[in-house]
């Protein structure tokens, strides 16, 4: 059907930390993350804040901090991305819309950092293109000469968005584009992302806001304690009976409009040998405690649960 743009297979990200002197300690933040984005599709990764979703975006672009290591395969158009390749295509074919204004250079005018380091005739061309995109997203000409601290939250978001789109990328990674915005700006952001989809670009949306994900995504990947536990079509989220994983169900049932249903339990503290949801799961068996489930196909959806695995049953 449609062409696969990005596919992430069994990616894990860990950090090396120093504990007491020179003793090193590996801290695993993402244990197993798999998903794919096709052309003209919006895929959302939904997980609680601080769970390490943004790291995936940084891993795709190859901008992880030095003490971070990323294992597993990240493929772009069926080619494995190495660090050199990431550096070659980032900013051109893959672009990041970062989380906050902190990603802008505070000492540079907005237009200068949007076009980057170009000189001579190319500069004129770049400025013309930058003006065109900025007007498209409703940024007036005065904005060009402002410094980042002079922008309001909504304006900064638009600057980040239009800067990312300047090189006409095929894949856009949007990292938490909505928090801190009032309702009107959220709606505008949602419209902007929908437009990207219409233009045939792939969008990977990283968010913790379930309502935003439900509104724009075609598919939603649920992220829990370092694992993707379910990837399902957005329309299935309207009816909890069509959802597979018990955590996904409780996530939807806990929405105020769906009854505000209470589910006990918290994410596990330490790494567990079996299923990460074992402690809280209503449909667990002894097998789940010791054996870690894999992400398997179940109809259109992907699910990480032994109950849907025919071989285990």
């Amino acid at each position, binding site marked *: 059907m449609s062409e696969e743009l990005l596919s992430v297979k069994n990616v894990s990200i860990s950090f090396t930390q120093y504990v007491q002197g020179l003793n090193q300690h590996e801290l695993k933040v993402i244990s197993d993350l798999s998903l794919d984005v096709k052309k003209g599709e919006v895929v959302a990764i939904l997980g609680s*804040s601080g769970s390490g979703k943004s790291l995936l975006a940084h891993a795709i672009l190859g901008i992880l901090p030095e003490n971070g290591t990323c294992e597993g395969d990240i493929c772009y158009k069926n080619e494995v991305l190495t660090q050199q390749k990431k550096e070659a295509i980032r900013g051109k074919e893959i672009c990041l819309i970062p989380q906050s204004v902190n990603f802008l250079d505070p000492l540079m005018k907005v237009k200068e950092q949007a076009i980057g380091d170009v000189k001579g005739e190319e500069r004129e061309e770049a400025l013309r293109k930058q003006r065109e995109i900025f007007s498209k997203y409703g940024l007036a000409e005065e904005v060009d000469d402002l410094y980042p601290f002079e922008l309001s939250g909504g304006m900064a978001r638009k600057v980040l968005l239009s800067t990312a789109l300047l090189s006409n990328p095929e894949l856009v990674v949007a990292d938490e584009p909505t928090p801190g915005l009032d309702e009107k700006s959220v709606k505008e952001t949602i419209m902007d992302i929908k437009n990207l989809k219409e233009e045939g670009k792939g969008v990977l949306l990283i968010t913790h806001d379930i309502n935003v994900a439900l509104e724009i995504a075609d598919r939603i990947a649920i992220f829990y304690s370092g694992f993707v536990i379910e990837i399902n079509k957005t329309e299935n989220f309207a009816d909890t009976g069509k959802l597979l994983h018990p955590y996904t169900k409780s996530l939807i049932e806990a929405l*105020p409009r769906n009854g505000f249903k209470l*589910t*006990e339990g918290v994410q596990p*503290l330490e790494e567990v040998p079996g299923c990460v949801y074992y402690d809280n799961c209503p449909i667990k068996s002894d097998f789940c405690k010791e054996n870690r489930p894999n992400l398997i196909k179940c109809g259109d959806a992907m699910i990480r649960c032994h109950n849907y695995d025919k071989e285990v049953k």
Partner: protein
Amino acid sequence: MYLNANNISFSYRKNKPILKNISISIPDNKVIGLMGDSGSGKSTLCKVISGYLNNYTGTITIDNELIDKTGYCPAQLIFQHPEKTMNPKWKMHKVLSESWNPPQELKDTFGLKEGWMNRWPSELSGGELQRFSILRALNPNTKFIIADEISTMLDTVTQVQIWDSLIDYCKKNKIGILAVSHDKELLEVIADNIVLFNDINKL
């Protein structure tokens, strides 16, 4: 028992009032929801009621007695970002005991795990830290809880857990709650009455 705020006015800069003649009353057995736009001054009102900002005009009384501006404020504020309200160099048991030592069963109701006590604030997630900051605010001297967007950044499952245990404890112990949020759906579920901030702020 009621917490009454009468004709509260406050401004950060001269001639630029942000709160004007606000009156609000919180009964000790109810959850009052306060809803308003970002930047309209909800958080400022919360800080005034819970004693963080003192140069306001108007009166705040509990049971018809003026709140003492020094000492422990009986109206305790819970902030949106728990990680910013904790000393990063204190372990969690010290963070909690700064206020009081809650009995074990209360820790269980709020889902505080024994294993968290010896961790640093940076080693816990936002939802876990928020449980600590709520329990910390429930000191026996607390008569009212001012909850300023306490569940905005949490996932829906954690949001239900936190509100469920907080409201349950407060109804049993006659503690009134002012729940501030811009999430209408949430307030409709948890609050007994909803007040629109723009209606009470007479700017």
